[in-house]
C-alpha cells in the first residue's frame, strides 16, 4: 500500500534481493537491499558464514544470480566441507560457474609495512572473481580480518569506505560479515560504512541451552520486524522462525468438525468446533486433558484426516496405552499413516530448535489437526516471556495454515482457573475448562465451555467422566452448595429415583382401583342387561298371552252375534 503510494508520487523504492533463506525474506519484507551492502554481524559461531553462504547458494540456484565468496578466514576446501553439512554442493556450483570462491589469507607476521599502500589488490581480485561468473551477489567474510593484517588503520578505513562505494557501483548485492564487538555491533565499527541494512546474529546461552537468534538492527526505507527471531541451522540450511504474518487475515471456514465426544459437540451448538480454529483445553493435573486430545485425534482420523500429535510429557507408547484403556485405539491410525506422534521433552534442545523442527514437521506432514499436549511444557525451561511469544507465534502459524489446533494447558491448582499461564486465550477460538470439583471427600471432574467464538455454546457445566468407553459428559445436579457431582450426584439421583418409584407405585395402585371399579361396573351392566333381557322375554310372553286372550274373546263375541241374527230372521 505504502509502496504503491510511493510509486504513484514517483519516489524511488528500495529494490530487494530475495535471499531464499526460509523466513528471512518474510521478516525483511522481501530480502536484502538490492545492489547494496548488508552488514551481517555476530559473535564467533553465531552462524554468519553459513547464512552468507546460503545467501549465495540460494541466489545461484533459485534466482539465477551467481555469487562470489571472498573468505578471509577459511580456505576453499573448508568452505566446501562446511557447506556440505548444510546440503550445499559448492563444487558443482563452481563447476557450473555460478559461484567463485577466493580465499584470502592474511598473516600479519609475514608482512612488513614500508610506507604508503592501498588495497587495490583486493579490489582487483574481487573484480576478477565477479567478472569470472558475472556475479550479482558478493559475500566478504569476515572483512574485519583486514584489521589484523594491516596496522595502518588510517589507510584501512579509507580503503573500506572506498570498497563499499565500489560495491555499490558494481551493482552487486553484498553481505559483509563482522565480528561482534563488546560495546559496538562490530569490533572495528564496520557499521559506520553500511547504512542500508544491518542484521545481528546471536548465539546465547540460557539455562544451559544455546539458542540462535537474529535481529534486524536497521533496514533503511523498509518496514521490518524488530523482534528477535530464533533460527535453526540444520541439514536443510537455515530456517528463521516463525513465518508469521503481521496481519489478521486468516481465511475462515464455516465447516464444523466433531470433537469426538458427542455430548461435547452438543454443548457446542450440536456440531462441534469450526475447522481451522484454535481450541484450548485448560485444567489442573488429571482432569482429562489428554483424554480429550485422544477423542479429537480419533475423530479426525476416522474422518480420514491427518493428525500431528506433539506430546511433551509422555511418550507416544504411553499415550496410546493410556488412551487404549478408555477405548481409543490410536495404533491403527498410526499404522495407516494418518497419525504421527512427536514425543520429546522441550528441554532436549533449545526452544527455537524445538519450535523450528515443529514448523518443519507441520510443513512436511500437512496435518488437518495439530495437537500440542501441553503447551506450558515450554514455560518450565526457558525465559517465560520468550516462551510466550514463541507459543503465540506457533499458534498463529498453525492458525494461518488453516490447521485446527488443539492445545492443552496445565493450570496449577492454586492459580485462578480462568487465567491461562501464557495468556494466550485471546488467540483461542474455543476454550474448554476442565476443573476438579471437590466435595464429600472425593474429587470429580467438571467441564464447561468458557468461550467458543461464533458458536452458540452451552453455558452449563457438565460432569466429565472417563470410562472404558471413552469420555462421557453427564448433566450435573444443582444443589444448594453448587453443582453436585460424583457420589453426591449419585445420592441425589437415588433420592430422585425413589421418589419416582413411589409415585409410580401410587399411580399403578390407583390405576388398578380404577380398573377394578370399571370392571365391577361392567359386570353390573352385564347383569342388568341379562335381567333386562329376562324381564323382556317374560313381559313379551305375557303380552302374547294377553293378545291371544283378547283374540279368543273377540272370536267368541262374533259367534254369539251370528247365532242371534239367525234366530230373529225366522
Amino acid at each position, binding site marked *: 500500500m505504502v509502496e504503491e503510494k510511493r510509486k504513484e508520487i514517483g519516489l524511488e523504492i528500495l529494490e530487494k534481493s530475495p535471499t531464499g533463506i526460509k523466513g528471512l525474506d518474510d521478516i525483511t519484507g522481501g530480502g536484502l537491499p538490492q545492489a547494496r551492502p548488508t552488514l551481517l554481524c555476530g559473535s564467533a559461531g553465531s552462524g554468519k558464514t553459513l547464512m552468507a553462504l546460503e545467501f549465495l547458494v540460494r541466489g545461484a540456484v533459485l534466482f539465477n544470480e551467481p555469487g562470489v565468496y571472498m573468505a578471509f578466514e577459511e580456505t576453499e576446501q573448508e568452505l566446501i566441507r562446511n557447506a556440505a553439512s548444510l546440503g550445499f554442493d559448492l563444487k558443482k556450483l563452481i563447476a557450473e560457474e555460478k559461484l567463485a570462491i577466493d580465499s584470502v589469507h*592474511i598473516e600479519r607476521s609475514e608482512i612488513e609495512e614500508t*610506507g604508503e599502500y*592501498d588495497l587495490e*589488490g583486493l579490489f582487483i581480485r574481487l573484480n576478477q572473481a565477479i567478472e569470472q561468473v558475472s556475479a550479482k551477489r558478493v559475500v566478504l567474510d569476515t572483512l574485519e580480518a583486514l584489521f589484523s593484517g594491516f596496522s595502518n588503520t588510517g589507510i584501512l578505513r579509507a580503503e573500506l569506505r572506498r570498497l563499499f562505494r565500489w560495491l555499490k557501483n558494481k551493482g552487486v548485492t553484498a553481505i559483509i560479515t563482522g565480528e561482534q564487538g563488546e560495546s559496538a555491533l562490530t569490533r572495528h565499527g564496520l557499521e559506520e560504512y553500511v547504512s542500508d541494512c544491518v542484521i545481528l546474529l546471536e548465539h546465547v546461552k540460557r539455562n544451559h541451552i544455546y539458542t540462535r537468534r537474529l535481529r534486524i538492527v536497521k533496514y533503511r526505507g523498509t518496514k521490518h520486524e524488530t523482534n528477535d527471531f530464533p533460527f535453526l541451522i540444520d541439514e536443510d540450511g537455515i530456517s528463521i522462525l516463525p513465518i508469521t504474518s503481521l496481519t489478521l487475515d486468516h481465511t475462515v471456514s464455516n465447516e464444523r468438525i466433531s470433537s469426538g465426544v458427542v455430548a461435547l459437540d452438543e454443548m457446542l451448538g450440536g456440531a462441534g468446533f469450526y475447522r481451522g480454529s484454535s481450541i484450548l483445553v485448560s485444567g489442573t493435573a488429571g482432569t482429562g486433558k489428554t483424554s480429550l486430545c485422544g477423542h479429537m485425534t480419533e475423530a479426525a482420523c476416522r474422518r480420514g484426516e491427518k493428525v500431528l500429535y506433539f506430546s511433551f510429557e509422555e511418550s507416544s507408547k504411553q499415550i496410546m496405552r493410556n488412551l487404549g484403556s478408555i477405548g481409543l485405539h490410536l495404533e491403527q491410525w498410526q499404522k495407516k499413516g494418518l497419525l504421527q506422534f512427536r514425543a520429546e521433552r522441550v528441554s532436549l534442545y533449545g526452544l527455537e530448535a524445538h519450535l523450528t523442527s515443529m514448523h518443519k514437521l507441520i510443513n512436511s506432514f500437512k496435518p488437518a489437526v495439530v495437537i500440542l499436549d501441553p503447551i506450558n511444557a515450554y514455560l518450565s525451561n526457558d525465559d517465560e516471556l520468550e516462551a510466550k511469544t514463541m507459543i503465540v507465534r506457533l499458534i498463529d502459524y498453525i492458525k494461518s495454515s488453516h490447521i485446527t489446533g488443539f492445545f492443552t494447558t496445565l493450570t496449577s491448582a492454586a492459580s485462578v482457573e480462568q487465567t491461562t499461564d501464557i495468556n494466550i486465550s485471546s488467540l483461542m477460538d474455543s476454550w474448554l475448562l476442565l476443573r476438579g470439583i471437590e466435595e464429600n471427600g472425593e474429587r470429580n471432574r467438571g467441564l464447561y465451555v468458557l468461550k467458543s467464538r461464533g458458536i452458540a455454546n452451552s453455558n452449563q457445566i457438565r460432569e466429565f467422566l472417563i470410562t472404558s468407553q471413552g469420555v462421557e459428559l453427564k448433566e450435573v445436579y444443582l444443589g444448594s452448595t453448587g453443582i453436585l457431582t460424583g457420589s453426591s450426584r449419585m445420592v441425589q439421583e437415588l433420592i430422585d429415583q425413589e421418589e419416582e418409584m413411589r409415585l409410580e407405585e401410587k399411580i399403578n395402585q390407583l390405576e388398578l382401583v380404577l380398573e377394578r371399579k370399571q370392571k365391577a361396573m361392567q359386570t353390573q351392566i352385564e347383569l342388568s342387561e341379562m335381567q333386562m333381557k329376562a324381564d323382556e322375554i317374560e313381559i313379551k310372553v305375557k303380552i302374547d298371552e294377553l293378545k291371544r286372550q283378547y283374540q279368543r274373546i273377540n272370536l267368541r263375541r262374533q259367534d254369539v252375534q251370528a247365532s242371534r241374527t239367525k234366530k230373529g230372521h225366522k
Partner: protein
Amino acid sequence: MNGNTKNSSEDEVWILKLYVAGQSPKSVTAFRNLKKICEEHLEGKYQIKIIDLLENPQLGKGDQILAIPTLIRQLPEPVKKIIGDLSNTERVLVGLDLQPAKKGAFDG
C-alpha cells in the same frame, strides 16, 4: 662488505616480485626505491619481476596480494612479503633480511 652472515653465499640469486596496479604513483615510487636498494645491497645477484595486476588480475590470488604495491622475496627462502611504496629503507632491509643484524656483527 656488509658483514651479512646469513646471506653470504656468493652465487645466491635473489628473485623479487613487485606487484603493482598500473602506473600509479605509489607503484612507480616503489619500483624506484626497490631498484635503489638492490643496487646498493645486492648488486649483480638480483632479479626484479614486475607484475601488473591490471593486466594479469588472476595472478593476485597465488601470492595472496591485497595491498598494492607488494614486494615478494621469492628466493632465497623463506618467502617474505613487504607492502608499501618501500620509502622506509630501513624497514625494507629488515623485511628482506638484508640489514646487517647487530647480533651477527658482535658474533663476527
